[in-house]
């Protein structure tokens, strides 16, 4: 009698089939228990553009007159006498005598048109326009001879000598707002690492969501220090756009070269402040 099927072949085929079904079942179980049936779609943030851009209404795009502030030439560095210094890693506080009154200044504070940039063991450095000035502590008995104008920031003191790259452009204080040279802005727009050499920024999260970005340090003598931002400030919005995600921050950074004015809302302690900049 001739067999219709070769039983061995059939058996082998059947075994392979069972094996295939087993593997399929195995994967099915894995899929059901551990694997995700759907992927994660990235939702592009809508409305990435700033809420507003402040525009100049002057005709023909004439450059805004550079306010070199002749009004601020009022005082001389010689009117300021350094009485005491408190200097730690993150805080610099000095006591000065000005017009026969003593005043306590923190880094970034202004007196007689001079901005406190930093302090060493027995001296403090101030900046005004492009120049940096050094005042020695009055007790060091070198007061009269040691006041000197230092032409470049890099020569000022050991504290600011760490500044590695001299960037073209400056930040000028125009009273209610600050004027930032476009060349300075362009430099930082094209060299992101240079930003992080001068300023530290970290995210602030609240129940897992980014609330804003906080300043962890501002390098003394850097253009960022002249922008008026301080350690501990939290950046909340720029030109009306909330900075509540890395994407929002990065989008602003990417478009920074196209803006002419910038309004930054920061939170300093419990107070909310608005900082205004004009890009020139």
């Amino acid at each position, binding site marked *: 009698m001739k067999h219709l099927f070769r039983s061995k072949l059939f058996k082998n085929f059947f075994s392979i089939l069972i*094996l*295939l079904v087993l593997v*399929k079942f195995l994967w099915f179980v894995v899929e059901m228990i551990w*694997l*995700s049936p759907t*992927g*994660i779609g990235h939702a592009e943030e809508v409305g990435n553009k700033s809420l507003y851009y402040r525009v100049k209404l002057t005709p023909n795009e004439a450059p805004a007159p550079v306010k070199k502030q002749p009004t601020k030439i009022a005082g001389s560095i010689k009117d300021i006498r350094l009485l005491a210094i408190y200097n730690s890693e993150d805080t610099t506080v000095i006591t000065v005598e000005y017009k026969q009154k003593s005043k306590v200044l923190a880094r970034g504070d202004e007196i007689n048109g001079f901005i406190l940039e930093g302090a060493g063991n027995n001296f403090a450095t101030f900046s005004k326009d492009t120049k940096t000035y050094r005042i020695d502590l009055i007790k060091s008995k070198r007061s009269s001879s040691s006041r000197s104008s230092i032409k470049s920031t890099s020569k000022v003191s050991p504290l600011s000598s760490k500044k590695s790259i001299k960037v073209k452009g400056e930040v000028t204080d125009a009273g209610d707002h600050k004027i930032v040279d476009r060349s300075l802005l362009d430099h930082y727009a094209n060299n992101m*690492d240079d930003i992080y050499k001068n300023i530290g920024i970290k995210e602030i999260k609240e129940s897992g969501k980014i609330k804003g970005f906080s300043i962890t340090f501002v390098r003394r003598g850097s253009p960022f220090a002249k922008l008026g931002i301080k350690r501990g400030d939290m950046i909340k919005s720029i030109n009306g756009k909330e900075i509540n995600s890395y994407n929002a921050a*990065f989008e602003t950074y990417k478009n920074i070269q196209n803006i002419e004015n910038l309004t930054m809302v920061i939170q300093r302690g419990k107070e909310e402040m608005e900082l205004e900049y004009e890009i020139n």
Partner: protein
Amino acid sequence: MQMVKNIFITFIVFWFALLLFMPKQELYFTLEKELAKQDIEINEQSINEGLFSLNLIQPVIYVKGIKIATIEKINIFTLILNTNINVKSLILDDSLKSFAPEKIDVANISYSLFSPFKVNIEAKGSFGFIEGRANLNERSLRLDFNETTKELDSIRSNLQKDEKGWYYETSF
């Protein structure tokens, strides 16, 4: 002998079935979820599942919500013991061109279970040819730039040099 032959055939069939029935898309989705925990997101236009591979068409990579790169195609091919990821035409976001080469024509990342801590990387682009390896145990990455091209100038500040030439090294 027959026994060995049977075991061998069973093994091969099992292996083949394992690869064939592997839920590649779901495995990829799981990988996507794991990456999302590290703030890395991949948004692809479409996914094509092959017999032994998975193709991601026009994926866009986001890190912390920031668009980092756009890729024409990623092909993931696995034989379980050996996995290859082939990346075709990766274009980095404009703003990152000072950190890394702007365009990578082809990149190949290979991983083998025989050396479980080693990942080999090869890439080719306008910057020349890159050869590198990542050590998962030491959590380090080294990329050697085998050619010195003009393109390298923009990222040279991030590179180091030894007797072999320019290289990039980092830990993760």
